[in-house]
């Protein structure tokens, strides 16, 4: 049975408005702080930077929202991203002599990333749903495995995309349309589609039902195994998408790629108001969570008030504060 960590007696109201307002207020507060500390904060360049680099974690966090809402968890996404990036680079470099620089090789890379993501998601999902091992353990295991594989593929060093190829592929991160860079566009698309499917789609409803009570969902003819599997596959796919955006940025992958992305993605999801125990999730909240996390880092880099050694402490405090703000209503009683 899912017993929430906090709630003993449940409030009669459905969702206290604070859970909606909370993250938004935290975000606005951060924006105001940022704007006060540095005039460039609200500039086009800075906002584009922050949004573009939030896109990787953001896209992954959208998938993570589905996984967590269905009652699961995935610790492997960071390593998975590193692994997929490494694989993509290896495949593209290997195909270069045959395909030459051009769109075909990009498509090959994209296809590699998507297929690898789906397979990786499938492996996690099957181990969790069919073999029946806790998501925490499975993905802790695969986290180690992918991290290790990328180190091994790179021989301990860095895998770099061929220079010519990189120049050709680069615009996928840096360019865009109407002044909005591609990562932001792709992120926005993922969010919109994700939000619609989670809140208004049959699949989203099934995801929430599975997370709320898998047995009830089963008795309601929901194929809970398939739903949970699908969330992991979706997450894998989105990790693939994130990687497609990531590789053109620096054109390299190493064993440090994507470190701690999993924790950041999970934190974003929870700050956004999704229940860690499953049963309720919202993609738009996750976006706010992602932005909060990115802005904290951005603001710390834009100012000198805090010793760089203490950045982590400030982030920790802010994460807790953001959630306190959101749970405000609950605390009140």
């Amino acid at each position: 049975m899912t017993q929430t960590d906090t709630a003993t007696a449940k409030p009669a109201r459905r969702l206290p408005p604070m859970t909606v307002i909370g993250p938004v207020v935290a975000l606005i507060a951060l924006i105001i702080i940022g704007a006060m500390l540095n005039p460039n904060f609200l500039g086009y360049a800075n906002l584009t930077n922050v949004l573009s680099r939030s896109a990787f974690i953001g896209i992954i966090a959208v998938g993570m929202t589905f996984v967590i809402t269905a009652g699961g968890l995935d610790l492997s996404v960071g390593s998975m991203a590193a692994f997929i990036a490494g694989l993509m680079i290896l495949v593209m470099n290997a195909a270069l002599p045959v395909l030459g620089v051009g769109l075909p090789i990009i498509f090959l890379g994209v296809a590699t990333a998507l297929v690898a993501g789906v397979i990786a998601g499938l492996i996690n999902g099957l181990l969790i749903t069919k073999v029946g091992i806790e998501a925490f353990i499975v993905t802790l295991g695969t986290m180690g495995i992918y991290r290790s594989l990328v180190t091994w593929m790179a021989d301990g060093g860095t895998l770099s995309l061929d220079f010519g190829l990189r120049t050709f592929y680069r615009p996928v991160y840096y360019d865009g349309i109407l002044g909005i860079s591609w990562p932001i566009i792709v992120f926005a698309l993922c969010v919109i589609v994700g939000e619609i499917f989670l809140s208004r789609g049959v699949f989203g409803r099934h995801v929430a039902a599975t997370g709320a009570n898998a047995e009830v969902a089963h008795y309601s003819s929901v194929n809970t195994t398939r739903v949970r599997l699908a969330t992991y596959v979706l997450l894998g796919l989105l990790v693939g998408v994130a990687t497609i955006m990531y590789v053109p940025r620096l054109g390299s992958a190493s064993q440090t790629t994507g470190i701690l992305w999993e924790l950041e993605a999970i934190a974003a999801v929870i700050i956004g108001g999704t229940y860690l125990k499953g049963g309720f999730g919202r993609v738009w909240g996750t976006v706010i969570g992602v932005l909060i996390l990115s802005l904290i880092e951005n603001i710390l880099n834009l100012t000198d008030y805090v010793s760089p050694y203490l950045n982590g402490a400030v982030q920790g405090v802010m994460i807790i504060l953001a959630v306190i703000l959101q749970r405000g209503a609950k605390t009140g009683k």
Partner: protein
Amino acid sequence: QDTTVIGVSIPAATHGWAGGMNYHAQATVDRLEEVYPQLDFVLSTASNAAEQVNDIEDMMATRDIAALVVLPFESEPLTGPVQALSESGIWITVVDRGLSVEGIEDLYVAGDNPGFGRVAGEFFTGAMPDGGQIVVLRGIPTTIDNERLAGFEEAIEGSGIEILAAEHGNWNRDDSFTVMQDFLSRYPEIDAVWASDDDMAIGAMAAIDAAGRDDIQFVLGGAGMKEMIQRTMEGDEMVPANVTYPPAMIATAIEMTAVGVTSNAPVSGTFTIGSVLITPENAEQYYYPDSPF
């Protein structure tokens, strides 16, 4: 025929330089195992000091090592355990980071971290005689990083060069990209960047490129990654120089230890591998196209 076992304990490849060092260690071990049939090597990598102590204990307890080549993750925590080995008669080679008690090791192949910072600083004073404003990307918070920064600050003192800000880029391309982007938002005018490491320099240059800023005259990395040396060699103005801190020092250390164990050649002592400035003139000497780093 009796085989002699040499243990090699190094930090895991958690950043580019360490990756290069791992590569050299592995390659040297493979090569020496063929050259010396009577030698056996145990290579283990650790991602923190405690794990490295575990590795060394395991070598001692189960592999009967006759010699240990260790690149300490951190000096302090490794001193005790390595000292214990030394006292039980095992040959000790320490690489790069000295232990905190002197005289434990038989052979010390040393990198020079304050020197690394100083050489970089001297390049800055030379390149910017009128002073200027720079930003600094630091590595993972460690003693090494502190020593390098101290050396750098000492060298630029009084030269009119001002460090606008220094943040940790963790010897990581992505992190330094992020930090550099934010530095660019924060300071409309930056004259140069000391990235203190080539991985970080790559991240920083990507951020500068993307921002289209032309106020930055150059980015100085460090450690001699081949791509960066190549750019220096080709006269890239953004990468006018580099400072060596060769990850291959581990290879030197392993080779010398092998010689020391298998022969009576006098290899003990201290070998400091100083940091030198690489410029377009001498770059060719430091270019190893086959290394992964």
